[in-house]
């Protein structure tokens, strides 16, 4: 498979990234190379193979439903650039 420039533009949008034309050119080229390389996986027939999402087979890891103190709001907000009235602030969203 190969990746087209239009696909790169679409994927960039999905990933919330913005590129100049020059960057777009570069990423299209590099991604195309990488995708051609990873396409070697298609040499393998994996019809009867189960996918492995977790390498160590553990299950049912839970927490008890016990309340612990939350973090001070000051600390919660300390790395935010825009804040107001104890809230994080973002550009106006028109619903």
């Amino acid at each position, binding site marked *: *498979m190969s*990746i087209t420039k239009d*696909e*790169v533009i*679409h*994927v*960039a949008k*999905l*990933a*919330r*990234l*913005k*590129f100049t034309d020059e960057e777009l050119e570069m*990423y299209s080229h*590099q*991604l195309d*190379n*990488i*995708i051609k*390389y*990873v*396409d*070697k*996986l*298609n*040499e*393998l027939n*994996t019809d009867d*193979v*189960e*996918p*492995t*999402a*977790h*390498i*160590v087979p*553990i299950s049912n*890891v839970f*927490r008890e439903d016990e309340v612990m103190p939350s*973090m001070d709001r000051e*600390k*919660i907000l*300390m*790395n*935010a*650039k*825009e804040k107001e009235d104890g809230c*994080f602030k*973002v*550009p*106006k*969203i028109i619903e």
Partner: protein
Amino acid sequence: MELHELKIHELHELLKNKEVSAVDVTKAYLERIKEVEPQVDALISITEEYALKKAEEADKMIQDGNINDLTGIPVIIKDNMCTENIRTTCASKMLEDFVPPYNATVVENLSNLGAVMVGKANLDEFAMGSSTENSAFKTTKNPWDLSRVPGGSSGGSAASVAADECAFSLGSDTGGSIRQPASLCGVVGMKPTYGLVSRYGLVAFASSLDQIGPLTKDVTDCAIVLNAIAGHDPKDSTSVDKMRKKDYKEFLKEDIKGIRIGYAKEFFGEGLDDGVRESIESSLKIFESLGAEIKEISLPYLDYALAAYYIVSSAEASSNLARYDGIRYGHVATNYEDLIDMYMVSRSEGFGKEVKRRIMLGTYALSSGYYDAYYNKALKVRTLIKKDYEKAFEDVDVIVGPTSPTTAFKIGERVEDPLAMYLADVYTVPVNIAGLPGLSLPCGLSNDLPVGLQIVGRHFDEGIVLNAAYAFEKACNFNAKPSFKGGAK
């Protein structure tokens, strides 16, 4: 011998016998950092004030008779592990001024034992890379030859140990990021079994592959540090139960008679440097001379590991790195039109090239219509690789081979060609794919540059890996030190 040249267990003896204080040790290392750091550029932050305070606390612990193996020992932490109230950047412009309000579990563990953090190490941005050239702040140099890379992504961690800026460091390893720089810098580095060490507080790159591990000056130190960081953490659902943890120092034995050591014929194919090949072949002879049984094995799917790795790790990364939008923390753009534009500009400004490349690849691999062709396919290949190893481990106890196909390469040599860079991880990646423990230790020099030997064991069988490594270290007696070639010194 200078204090900064000592190993953990040697420093520990001095501290225990009160021949030196933790403050003395810390000052000596801070001094050493000032001396070599301008040449090596291994660190993003030097935490002098914090270190001196911690050293005083360590001295109090020692006076109270509460000394343990790591009390008063200077450590450097890779800058993708959260440190409370101390900047944690991931070597990214995105997190240039991010100050976590909490400690990673490993950081907390080390702190409780009285270890003294003297700095935070440089890395490839968000741990993506094999040369530490992808840092947004600086390129770390290899102490053996300052015109060469230290490997990556834990290049700062490896170089700082090699340059004696600390007694040990912590790195993280997603596809070789501890073992490959350890190999290139001539130190010992270990990626434990996936799940043995808590990932809580490690800024995620690829969650199903990431694992924290030690970089040390010898195998004994590796076992000491592993003792400190391994074990169950209720904050990490993928960390294993308490039963799995052992006292790893118990495995430091020179006797490996009868241990079955496998080497995969696939290791010795195209792309392997002759110098590296020779070192590995003589390493096998050393094992043989120690009474181990050497067996050739086959890992037929090895050739597909790198492709599967780049799909899985990039897909997970694309999701893990989606949270950096500038709202709650991190870089935020100043010029944008609306909310969506703010996301786009902030992210495009905050992330470097390699990170963006992987986000793009990962987003593509997960996007509608491609999931089965890429992500799910890669997870299936993961199953095949896992089974390859399971089959191999029916006949052998450990698998040895080169850690990296080459010794340290020149700075700038591979930056323009991502695929060539990715090939640096060809021997380490399969181990992450299968979640196995892997250790790299120096086994010789090739053109005055260290060569690393990788030893891989079964899941949670760090013991036998350490046993083999310890016996090899004693027999090999590698004791060359970095020359800071090309430096002012």
